[in-house]
């Protein structure tokens, strides 16, 4: 519903041209002010100035971890004589999240421009865009845009006449969620199984093919041209000190107007749900909200009166994550919902770490047992015990992601579990 619907309370920066097919080709994009930032940055700004501006803007990674983008770029070595790589994480697979897909679909050049600037900043000669294989309609759009960018000299041997060489390769993923984890993505790009790697070394030290690499999310890079053209202070007019700017929220679930909404980062979550998204369906009561994709803790309807900033959501007991907001009304069975999520993680675990491979599988089985009325009293402590073991002890955070909905749903909807275990019933209203 978001296009052409634009809610007046949105602040549309990266999503400004969603729904505007004319922004897709390079000419249309240039007409709309595209590549101004690249033209400004490459000849006029030093790499350090680009990084400093992005750092000053306070832009944080929009893929889920929220790590400051400028700082990430700063970690890249200088004068090391090695090839550097920029990897664009367009493998958007987090359940409930569909924002990067729309950026790529409507404004592929917005991403390319940000990526070219990023590549310049980190001295990368090659950009790899790792795009989710299921984005069958988006992949040709992106391919077309890359060809156009080469034709116009935004990519290639001599970018914008500066003598700099920046190449770009699109790599289409083969369907594994874990390839979206940054080091798993690097393994996959190298032709291996998408198995995450131990950190340290971090990608900035030894990333793709063992070379210094930065992995950035699509939305983060899409914001960069706007920041360079308008300045860090301009970006900071929205949001909070720790969470400046705007963020796209992909809102789905039991909502009247699901879709992508771009809001300032101090926007109220309850307003996002009730005002922008129109609240629950008629006759239904909101029960739970997962604000940042299935990997973040669930909030009850009473807990959502908080800002969507990184710190605001942490204070409320959850996280911004990828911005994939999932709303559940009183028809939803939380045990079932969590079981479904955990099954997803069990299916997508790469299988390297014991507690993830085994833990997600066992947790899913226990949840299914509970859902089907076969649960035992001891299952709740057992789930908590397994979850504790899954969090913070593995190579990547996939098992933390699986543990989050389990633990938070038990904390907040324990009744639901007991109803299943003790009464073989469900508190969901049909």
């Amino acid at each position, binding site marked *: 519903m978001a296009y052409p619907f634009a809610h007046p309370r949105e602040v549309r920066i990266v999503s400004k041209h969603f729904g505007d097919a004319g922004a897709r080709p390079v000419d249309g994009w240039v007409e709309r002010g595209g590549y101004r930032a690249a033209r400004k940055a490459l000849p006029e700004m030093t790499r350090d100035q680009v990084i400093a501006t992005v750092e000053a803007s306070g832009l944080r990674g929009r893929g889920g971890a929220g790590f400051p983008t400028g700082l990430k770029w700063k970690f890249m070595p200088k004068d090391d004589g090695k090839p550097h790589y920029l990897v664009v994480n367009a493998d958007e697979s987090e359940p409930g999240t569909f924002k990067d897909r729309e950026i790529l679909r409507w404004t592929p050049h917005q991403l390319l421009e940000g990526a070219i600037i990023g590549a310049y900043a980190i001295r990368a000669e090659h950009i790899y865009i790792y795009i989710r294989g299921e984005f069958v309609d988006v992949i040709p759009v992106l391919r077309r845009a890359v060809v156009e960018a080469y034709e116009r000299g935004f990519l290639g041997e001599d970018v914008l006449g500066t003598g700099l060489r920046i190449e770009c390769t699109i790599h289409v993923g083969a369907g*594994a969620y*874990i390839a979206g984890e940054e080091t798993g993505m690097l393994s996959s790009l190298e032709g291996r*199984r998408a*198995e995450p790697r*131990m950190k340290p070394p971090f990608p900035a030290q030894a990333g793709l093919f063992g070379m210094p690499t930065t992995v950035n999310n699509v939305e983060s890079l899409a914001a960069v041209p706007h920041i360079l053209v308008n300045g860090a202070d301009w970006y900071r007019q929205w949001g909070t000190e720790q969470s400046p700017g705007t963020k796209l929220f992909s809102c789905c679930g039991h909502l009247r107007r699901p879709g992508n909404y771009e809001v300032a980062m101090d926007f109220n979550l309850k307003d996002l749900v009730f005002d922008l998204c129109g609240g629950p369906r008629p006759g239904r009561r909101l029960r739970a909200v997962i604000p940042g994709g299935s990997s973040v803790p669930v909030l009850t309807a009473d807990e959502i009166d908080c800002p969507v900033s990184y710190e605001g959501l942490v204070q409320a007991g959850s996280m911004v994550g990828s911005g994939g907001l999932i709303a559940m009304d009183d028809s939803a069975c939380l045990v079932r919902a969590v079981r479904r999520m955990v099954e997803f*993680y*069990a*299916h*997508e*675990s*790469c*299988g*390297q*770490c*014991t*507690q993830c*491979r*085994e*833990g*997600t*599988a*066992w947790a899913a*089985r*226990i949840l299914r*047992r509970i859902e089907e009325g076969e649960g*035992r009293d*001891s*299952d709740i402590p*057992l789930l908590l*015990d*397994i979850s*504790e*073991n899954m969090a*913070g*002890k*593995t*190579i990547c955070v996939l098992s933390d992601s699986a543990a989050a909905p389990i633990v938070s749903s038990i904390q907040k909807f324990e009744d639901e579990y007991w109803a299943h275990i003790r009464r073989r019933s469900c508190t969901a209203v049909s």
Partner: protein
Amino acid sequence: MASAVGAPARRLVTCSIDGRPVTVPEGTTIWEAARQLGIEIPVLCHDPRLRPVGVCRVCVVDVGERVLAAACVRGVADGMKVTTTSEGIERCRKTLTELLLSDYPRESRREATLGDDELLALARRYGIDREAIPLPRGDGRREDLSSPVIAVDHAACILCDRCIRACDEVQHNDVIGRTGKGYGARIAFDLDVPMGESTCVSCGECAAVCPTGALTHKSLGVAIHPRAELRAVDSVCPYCGVGCAVTYYVDLSKNAIAFADGRPSPGNDSRLCVKGRYGFDYAFHPQRLAKPLIRRGEYYPKGPLSGDVRGEGRGARGRKPGGVVDSEEVLPAFREASWDEALDLVARRFLEIRATHGPDALAGFGSAKCSNEEAYVFQKLLRAVFGTNNGDHCTRLCHASSVAALLETIGSGAVTNVYGDVRNADVVLVAGSNTTDNHPVAATFIKDAAARGTKLLVVDSRETGIARHAHHFLRIAPGSDVALYNAWMHVLIEEDLIDHEFVRERTEGFDALKEVARRYPPELAEGICGVPAGRIREVARIFGRARAALIFWGMGISQHTHGTDNARCLISLALLSGSVGRPGTGLHPLRGQNNVQGASDAGLIPMVYPDYQSVEDPAVQRQFEEAWGVALNPKRGLTVVEIMEGALRKTVRGMYILGENPFLSDPNINKVRKALASLDFLVVQDIFLTETAEFADVILPATSFFEKTGTYTNTDRRVQIGRQALEPPGDARLDWTIVCEIARRMGYRMEYRDAEEIFDELTSLAPSYAGLTYRSLEPYGKLWPCPDPETGDGIQILFDDAFPTPSGRAKFVPAEYQPAAELPDDEYPFVLNTGRLLEHWHTGTMTRRARALHAIQPSAFCEMNPEDLEHLGIEPGDLVTLRSRRGSITLRVQASPRTAPGAVFVPFHFREAAANALTNDRLDPYGKIPELKFCAVRVEKALADERLEHASGPS
């Protein structure tokens, strides 16, 4: 001198582990640092021999961060405070163990055999009752018992990744990987086919490192028990020249070996191949000879006894699976005798022949499978008692030409550097060596270097396993080596890629070489080798620009009528580029047999006494006459093929063959058959009734490798002790005691207390072995020469400042290309190439009686290019008859692009289709080595023979 390239000293860091300070080099992992403090952090996925990956998460420790860190991967840092155990950490470990155990099979194959299941040990540590684990049961994971040697139980697999790293990074076979995701993740072979159908080479490294019951050794007929319940014998492998250090675990109650482990010797770093790990059970095969045998009167005049050996293509009663001599067909020709009767007969007949026809009518073949001590006493018997230098062994069939070239150019026939030093080379050339099949563990070092950036150049007419790892593989036309290497040298000289200083200071004869190389531009070589001139130039430049280049070669170089020329070219190439005498450089002809180096060192060759001292040098002769107390024959003796020819011409009348099987190993079997049959008297001393033994007058039952103690010298010049693990069967005797008994009965006193006393006599006469003692050879042997046996490992890199030639310089000996002795023509249009298979050894006497090896490669076959087969209208798997001017064999054909069009490859292990029925016995004029790698053959489709069908099928 021995030099190792040392890593730069690492900075030291100090941290505290459980409150105890420890200072270690930077980069040391927490797990290692803790171990130094005696703190054992439990872990399942880590093994110190493997690259740490940190996937089992059992070793997690608290380093004061938000999350726990895996101790096996995390390096210590200055000031780091590590807590290895706490209630939280232990709970985490316990839960992990429970997660892994919940679906674990009731019966762990590892616990049931070796009893060292590490997961069950953790379960005991945490007091976990598997029945009480509150997790629901899974749907189970399957078993895969398709490999003859390794049992796979996916249900017991904890995905620790050890096997994957062992396969990919230790053995570099790249067979095992992971497939599936999440709980469905499991290890997979190739593209997830059963292990037995995969490209697995059964080295067993995976089963050796597996911590659970997932990958375990299958029993080879003797039940595997925990190590503590068996007797561990530190020894070496009886097969190839790599000489891997092995511990055999012996079930004393059965007088049999249950299983083998690799030892961490510099030569094999605990690695083994399929033969070393699973090929020992031939020693306790029921067909072992246990009594002396004397041929019955009615079986004279002598001749072959079995159908195969008669050349009928099959045994009279249809061949038995296994392709070994049919004892029931042959044994009736012999009667059992006492040792006294047999030995008296032997001594009497040899004395008679010597008296009637002179000492040179006697000859002996010793064995490169026997120890240095046995080789020494055997050649001493021939020289001091028989009075002849007619003693040789299979070195003649393997590296005689290489040794001839090495002696002539650099003054020493042994390797100038060890194979393990390939790690310090930046370019390595593997020429005519099927290293992965014939020296599998040495190949792991080459593959490892190639994976770490050493440029691997492989030149061969057949695309061998090592070629798959090559950066550049040149498939040359068979027998065209001289043209290729001359062209390389042409390029090096033309483009000035030579080491002028080395050539000036350390060599002589460069001008002559230059003159010959000038005539071999790559364009000329292209026409001979079939490799484009541009490729020849490209690869020559890589070699020429190397900082340190190491050259390995094998039978593809040596077994030609121009084998010595081939080797001369490789030596010239090394001299031209200064690739001798420095780390990462050298000349390394990979020795075939476990003791071919040692048997040669001990003087089991017709021209030299121990340590290559010429029999024609009067001073040397005097020295040995003094040592042995008899007058010695100053005339050099006959070589292997010459002895056979002598037998045919009746100049050789009596032979003593100890542990060789020339009927199958020598070229042109039809001639060998006649030669053996025409001997007046033949004694065969062996552990089985070999094909050769069918021609014997007396057969003496000897001891297998496992039943005696002795020293063996590997391809690196590493002298190692092979220790007795088993008791000999029946009346079988130690080989050296039999030799001494014959000497005594022929009137010469040859008495030794034990093998060690023989070794001491050998070292006193062989300057290269000077100073070595059994004690100093513990635990991993010593390289000869070894100036400081008490402390040093011996000299790894020879000739760092001078060569043992009269001038101290190495000599360039240029060689002109000449074609093989018998070229293909219209009648015989294909080129036959013979060789070995990974699973078999030479004439199959041992390996075809090893149940696992036999199961993997049960029957004879030849390999041809699919294009040729299509052209001939022959399907893979069809029976074909191969004919040469000397004989024919019938066997199944396999299609493989590894063999070039126009070529046929035949492994020579199989008596029922003996490759040497076809081969040419023409000799290299210098090394006297026959051209086993080249002769012309015809290929015909054969009609299916039901008996053959039956016989060669799986048993």
